[in-house]
């Protein structure tokens, strides 16, 4: 639906006017598309905005472990160019797994900060630099002021900033409801994997909730986890109708 709205000329001029007011009219915002039509269509601009702060948290128990959220972010970072800065307070990232979603260990520089304050300071420094592909930081508390600073730093340099919200206790995870200045906010929850005809674990699936998107609407997606190049995909059963149809039409018109 958003895709159709994008085409209306009146709305386009209004959008341009608003972005002029917001003060970044001089250059067109760059996007990092997911490559999944259903997700990209829901995001204003057709992808994850570069030069912006995004928030990701795990759902359920993953709010504490951030395994799915971490992999989701690694998948996004893998699709950028340049080095990736990954800021943590307690290090438990298993580097071979990031390699498996396409984020090479040669590209990833880790910063082990002592406190959340240090994390935010390093995060801002990394965003300000502008030469990094993505800056990922695992942080528990993110205040409005802090997130606005980060958002401004990202805007000026054009870097992609991803805050993985990760808490020590399940009760603290309610903090995710507090408003921040981030452009999008995601929640990644694990779903049972694709059943296989033989014993074994199939391709992992996630429930991807777009909880907040500036100038966009919320949405839920059921996706298959990142592949070797960091790309998500829709499960075949769900993608069936639309995708097959589109392919058929293309073939017919060729």
């Amino acid at each position, binding site marked *: 639906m958003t895709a159709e709205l994008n085409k209306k000329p009146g709305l386009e001029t209004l959008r341009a006017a608003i972005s002029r007011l917001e003060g970044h009219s001089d250059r067109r915002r760059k996007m990092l598309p997911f490559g999944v039509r259903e997700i990209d269509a829901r995001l204003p601009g057709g992808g994850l905005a570069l030069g912006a702060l995004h928030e990701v948290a795990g759902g*359920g*128990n993953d709010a504490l472990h951030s395994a799915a959220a971490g992999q989701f972010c690694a998948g996004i970072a893998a699709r950028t160019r340049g080095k990736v800065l990954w800021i943590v307070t307690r290090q438990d990232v*298993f580097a071979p797994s990031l*390699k498996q979603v396409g984020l090479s*260990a040669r590209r*990833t520089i880790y*910063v082990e900060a002592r406190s959340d304050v240090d994390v935010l300071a390093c995060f801002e420094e990394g965003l300000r630099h502008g030469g990094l592909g993505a800056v990922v930081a695992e942080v528990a508390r993110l205040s409005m002021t802090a997130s606005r600073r980060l958002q401004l730093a990202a805007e000026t340099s054009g870097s992609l900033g991803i805050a993985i919200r990760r808490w020590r206790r399940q009760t603290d995870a309610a903090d995710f409801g507090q408003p921040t200045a981030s452009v999008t906010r995601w929640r990644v929850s694990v779903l*049972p994997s694709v059943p296989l005809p033989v014993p074994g*674990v199939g391709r992992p699936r996630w429930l991807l909730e777009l909880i907040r998107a500036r100038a966009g609407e919320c949405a839920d997606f059921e996706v298959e986890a990142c592949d070797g190049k960091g790309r998500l995909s829709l499960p075949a059963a769900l993608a069936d109708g639309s995708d097959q149809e589109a392919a058929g039409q293309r073939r017919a018109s060729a």
Partner: protein
Amino acid sequence: MSVDLAARKLGLRPGTPVAKAQALYPDLVLMDADPDGDRLGLEKLALWFQHRIAPIVAVDAPDGLVLDTTGADHLHGGELPMLKDMVHRMAGAGFRAKAVVADTWGAAHAIARYGRAPIAIVPSGGTASALADLPVEALRLPSTIIEGLATLGVSRIGQLAAMPRAPLALRFGPDVARRLDQAFGRIGEAIVPVRPVDPVEVSRNFAEPIGAAETIARYIGKLVPLLCQGLDERGQGVRRLDLLLHRVDSRTEAIRVATAMPVRDVKRLTRLLCEKIETINPGFGIERMVLIASLAELMDRRQTVSSLIAEEEADVSDLIDTLANRVGTQALYRFAPVESDLPERSFCRVPALAPEETKDWPEHWPRPTRLLARPEPVQAMAELPDQPPLFFIWRGVRRKVKCADGPERVFGEWWKNDAELTIARDYFRVEDTSGERFWLYRAGDGEHGETGSQGWFLHGIFG
């Protein structure tokens, strides 16, 4: 003069007459004291410490070093790890060393020599109680005064500190009160640091002492170009830069910044130094600023290759330096593969700008996003010998296993450790009914007792 550990065990002490010692132990090895050699050795060691730990290091003759570690400890992971590291390094070089952090030079000197623990940290403000029980010899007083105090029946610092000053000064001169005050931190004591051989160095004296942060920043901005000019003449770039600020009360404050690669860029060095201004305490004012390139390396002018195919990747070394000076070099790293089947040994930390390694981890088995620092024991029920568990209990929650992959058998590395000769682990990737995926292993192969305890552990969490 001095005895080694073996001799100390036999009951010999410094001060035992040689004739007596030889009479007791005829095969005793005697060596002439070599104060000049000792002094040279200590100076070398001081330079090495200056290289490794902190910019202000001086020789505390005859047998010690004194370091001003203010603002340097966090780069080594805190005070205790720093001291441990120092003592271990000295042990590695064959010396038995003691290390103490205290508020003052005098207190650290006393506790290092007369305290019991090889490593001690005196909490700020706890100097008086830490010193009270130590003998007066610890106060760096001449032996005549020590003997004099002994005739008065004063043997402990606590006793001495409680005595009235005037009679003491009348009898022994001003030294006793001065050393006491230095140890308790009532008067300052300047540490005159050793200097590396022939460094590039620029300095500036001020007619009026300066103190404001902006003023300091302005003069840093004037000193750095001069230093870079000096470096340029030698074709060097700086790897470590010390800024010493001499205060009017003859204390020295220091800022140290380090870079990952040789740098001669005025703007970048100025920025690194200015970020640290807030860590210094100008007191009543600073009258002299000295900027020393304490570690400089040859810097080649490189031709930039303009490539038609690949876009040049942005240079992040300046960011690395900024972050390293904030969180410490050890806290900034990349992971590099290590050839090992055991997950916790399959990676190592390398410096962020280390040359890129060519090997990589094998990719045929899925690996968890998060690896627990220590595998956590879980209760599990599984069919022997090689079936995945049917259920397991982790952190009090019982999880029924819906599907699983495995086993992936990993053997102990007997070439590293004899005890690992028979060890085996069976790794399983399991998914519970709610869809959460975990990495479990059994310590053992499920058949032979010598391969492990056969207990189950949770080692990682999949996304």
